[in-house]
């Protein structure tokens, strides 16, 4: 286990893509301390901002309020990162394996363009979760992102595969230009959910304002939802799928594209 304890808040956000199990797996303690981090345009060292314990491990714990530490877990393929406080932007961007666990809040661009692995945020996250960076055709290509709190704009924008589940409310443009995959909105969303959606599934457990280009198709409990539910259940997220308890109203869209996606809105029995 390698433990990094933030001892000094950076004056501007720190670019710390070196904080990744792939980087630290074979490094000595001294080598980890000497790894470069960028404070604006200046190159500094990890030890300028962190106390470092341990060596040669793909298990990393980061302690302290790292909300200004960007790119933690960038492009990681293995191992585990545990952040006991908050984490900065681009957490787990481009990752393809391993797991990241944040007890506090995340920021924007969590899991951007990731292709595998698991990210869990206990608190809130920002916008553009699992999204494509500007100009890229595709966002998240696989993997799982779970957020315990709420999230911001453009959750899952241009994602192609994988699952994003957010317990709290999200803001506008969830699933913008979605190409596939599944977004679960535990507490619904604000406006323009699914705008320009091509494929994929947005599941909302609360009522959701829908754009007029989404058209009603059916009310049922889709079979695949039980598979998702079993998967998310193992990760501590509950997705209702019992016909005794209710059903999903399915809306197809975004017909303005035209898209073959769907928005499923949970309606409890008797409601």
């Amino acid at each position, binding site marked *: 286990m390698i433990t990094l304890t933030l001892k000094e808040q950076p004056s501007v956000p720190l670019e710390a893509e070196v904080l990744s199990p792939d980087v630290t797996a074979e490094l000595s303690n001294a080598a980890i301390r000497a790894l470069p981090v960028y404070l604006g345009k200046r190159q500094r060292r990890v030890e300028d901002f962190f106390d470092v314990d341990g060596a040669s491990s793909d298990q990393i714990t980061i302690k302290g309020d790292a909300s200004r530490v960007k790119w933690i877990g960038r492009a990681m393929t293995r191992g585990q990162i545990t952040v006991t406080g908050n984490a900065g932007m681009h957490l787990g961007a481009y990752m393809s394996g391993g797991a990241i666990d944040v007890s506090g809040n995340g920021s924007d661009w969590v899991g951007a363009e990731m292709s595998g692995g698991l990210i869990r945020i206990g608190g809130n996250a920002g916008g553009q979760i699992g999204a494509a960076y500007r100009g890229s055709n595709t966002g998240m290509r*696989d993997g799982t992102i779970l957020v315990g709190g709420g999230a911001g704009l453009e959750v899952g924008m241009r994602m192609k*595969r*994988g*699952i994003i589940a957010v317990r709290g409310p999200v803001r506008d443009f969830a699933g913008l230009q979605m190409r*596939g*995959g*599944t977004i679960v909105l535990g507490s619904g969303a604000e406006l323009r959910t699914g705008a320009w959606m091509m*494929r994929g*599934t947005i599941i909302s457990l609360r009522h959701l304002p829908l754009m007029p280009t989404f058209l009603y198709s*059916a009310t*049922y409990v*889709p*079979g*695949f939802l*039980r*598979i*998702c*539910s*079993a*998967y998310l259940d193992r990760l501590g997220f509950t997705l209702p*799928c019992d016909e005794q308890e209710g059903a999903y109203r399915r809306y197809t869209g975004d017909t303005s594209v035209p898209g*073959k996606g*769907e928005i499923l809105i949970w309606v409890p029995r008797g409601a």
Partner: protein
Amino acid sequence: MGRELHGVEIVDTFAEAFDMRASRVIITAASEGWARTAAVSMTGFATSVIGCKVEAGIEAMLPASDTPDGRPGASVLVFAFNAEGLSTRLVERVGQTVLTCPTTACFDGLPDAPERATVGGVLRHFGDKFQASKVVDGRRYWRVPVMEGEFLVQETFGTQSAIGGGNLLILAKDQAAALAAAEASVDAMRQVRGVILPFPGGIVRAGSKVGAKRYKNMTASTNEAYCPTVRGRLGVASELPETVNSVLEIVIDGVDRQAIEDAMRVGLDAACGPGVVQISAGNYGGKLGKHLFKLHDLLN
């Protein structure tokens, strides 16, 4: 040297079984009844690869807690000569009998098998481009829109090498005794996982030999050495002791050697009932099949 079990002679012989290719298909439905209905339909007309192209049967009924989607289910094993044949047969059978049956979903029962047969990946075309796929936890599923709602089927099913043709021959004093013993044996074997008994009720009343002596171009014909009413005819060397008047065979296909051994062991024990004279097994002198199951080894 002769051995006995529960007063029944166990012939010192062996069953000769063959390489096959198998898949496990999990069918779930809204109720156990509907899962069973789909499974029975799927495994119909699947007694022998020779005439039916596959051998298939229900391995076990599954409680809801044991299935991928948490609904009651059935586990079906399908055996074919080779991977390509297996693939084609799976598509045919799932397509004609599971896809068509109300409330079913269809999942792969060999998730760790590296070799895959494309099943949902073919059946999805029934959706006429209205279908959609979903990848969850690294597995791809197809959602095919149907009048009843949606049919969910996994894209690929694992296939593995397997064994077909383990068997027991029950030689008894009369038909009733043979049948009672065979039924008891089948009940015992059905508790074993990893095997199916492809013939009707698990039992073969017309055990066969390869080819024929008096007709050309026959794949199989009656095995006269074990037919009680042929005993005494000129030129027939009967294998039947004088007191035997009826023989029934049980054929066992299994995912591996261990499963067949387990089934044959419990089956052998249960078959040694009243009126049973001998338990034997069918083979081809060890010349055709790679897998030999010696009956006496099962007694140890």
